[in-house]
């Protein structure tokens, strides 16, 4: 479904060249949920922006359904790390969520259904008529998630989407993503710095090395598919996997 082959990205500015990504090769099957973890500044956001067709690669390529990605592909939703800046302050929460649907020419009745449903799912039904700047950071982040959910994407890219919410909300949102992914079979690439979260959500966890960035490990998460916050997290296997990823990231940081 999504193939990233020998992707290389260097930021070029006068007098300075930053190689954010040395070489990443990685495939995500249709309907798969893959988590990406790596030390801060290793190029996770850069990777996502290349996959989203927002940033031209310096080398290698990204293919979606066999078609090289050159611009933002249709039916792909992205939740940006800078969630606050990705919302339009002149629109209400509802309008923000609804705009992409209008653009997709979803009929009005269905649109209302999707917007209401997704806002309810992230616990913001009451805030539909507020403007984003009237909300807390965590609430804004949930609006951005609701917008992606309502869009009914085929591919969902998320860049540390739960960074600004409390632990309980975070657990709820994790389960929301899992439910969504299972129900709609959304192919998901999920960037996080939280190792527990990566192991809990992912079918696979990709560990990136620190810069110059390469794939350090592509780890299959062999936990039972029906995940549950309490039982899954208390499985001995969960602890082993988490410990393994933790050591890998320590190694990645140590090699700097």
């Amino acid at each position, binding site marked *: 479904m999504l193939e990233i082959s020998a992707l290389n990205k260097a930021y070029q500015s006068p007098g300075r060249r930053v190689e954010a990504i040395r070489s990443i090769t990685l495939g995500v099957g249709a309907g798969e949920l893959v988590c990406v973890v790596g030390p801060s500044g290793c190029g996770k956001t850069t990777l996502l*922006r290349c996959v989203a067709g927002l940033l031209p690669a310096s080398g290698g390529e990204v293919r979606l359904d066999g078609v090289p990605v050159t611009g*933002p592909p249709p039916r792909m939703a992205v939740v940006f790390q800078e969630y606050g*800046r990705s919302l*339009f302050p002149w*629109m209400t929460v509802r309008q923000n969520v609804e*705009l992409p649907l209008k653009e997709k020419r979803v009929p009005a009745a269905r649109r209302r259904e999707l917007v209401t449903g997704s806002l309810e799912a992230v*616990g913001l039904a009451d805030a539909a008529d507020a403007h984003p700047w009237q*909300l807390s950071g965590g609430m804004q982040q949930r609006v951005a998630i609701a917008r992606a959910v309502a869009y009914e994407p085929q591919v969902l890219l998320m860049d540390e989407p739960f960074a600004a919410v409390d632990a309980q909300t975070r657990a709820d949102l994790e389960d929301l993503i899992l439910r969504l992914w299972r129900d709609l079979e959304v192919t998901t690439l999920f960037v996080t710095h939280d190792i527990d979260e990566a192991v809990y959500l992912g079918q696979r966890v990709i560990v990136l090395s620190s810069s110059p960035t390469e794939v350090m490990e592509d780890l299959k998460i062999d936990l039972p598919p029906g995940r549950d916050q309490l039982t899954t997290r208390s499985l001995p296997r969960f602890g082993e996997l988490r410990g393994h990823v933790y050591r890998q990231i320590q190694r990645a940081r140590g090699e700097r």
Partner: protein
Amino acid sequence: MTRTGGPARDSARDSARASARDSARASARARLGHGLAGLGGLLALMEAVPRLGLVDERFLPPASRILTTLAGELATPALWIALGETMRGWALGLALAFCAAVVAGVVIGTVPGLRAMTSSTVEFLRPIPSVALVPLATLLFGPSLGSTMLLVVYAAFWQVLIQVLYGVAAVDSVAHDTARTYGLSAWSRVRHLVWPTALPYVMTGLRLAATVAFILAVTAELVIGSPGLGAEIQVAQSSGAVPVVYALIVLAGLVGIAVNAGVRLLERRVLAWHPAVRSEVAA
């Protein structure tokens, strides 16, 4: 999942908002009070200076005379016709300049490469004072509305264009990426992202342009003799009616203030979501 809002919180927010509004109102009242005091002082001074013989009354009539003359002038239809002429030139010129500048600004700002191509031309044309076009206006239109319009449009156009260009350049890169990933068409991006981002700048441009346009409208009438307030001042001056000259100048000043206040009001309404306006939240 945590529910937010709820009646208790709403009412707390409302009362915080109301108290912020009250304090904003109180400070506005205080400002108004200071302004009126200052104005009163100025009037007293203008009354005293000629009465004490510091300046010849023929050159500076006392404030009371100016105001009674103004009241008398306001009772004549001729003055209202002149004012109407001025405001027509102002409004038409401003509207034309505004529309042209907004379209030009959005196109120049959003089509890649166009900004670099046009910037030297803009930098060359912008500093030309509108008044330097007086001979050209006289030649083309003579003492008519056309002359007023030419000067007004030229002066107002650049004020708006420059602001629109700044505004279009201020589009947030993440918001832009968001619009692209969600498949917004070029037109939707202009309508839902570029235009709202630029709007505060556009309103600033409009405010500057409205004032400049009014100055240029009166200037054109004064210098070229197109019908309007400026021409009336010119006529009063040449017939030695000094109090009338002053009365018309005062009237022009009042109209200028009204124009500025009107645009500010419009600005506040249009930009209710904008940080510079949404004072309740900051409080």
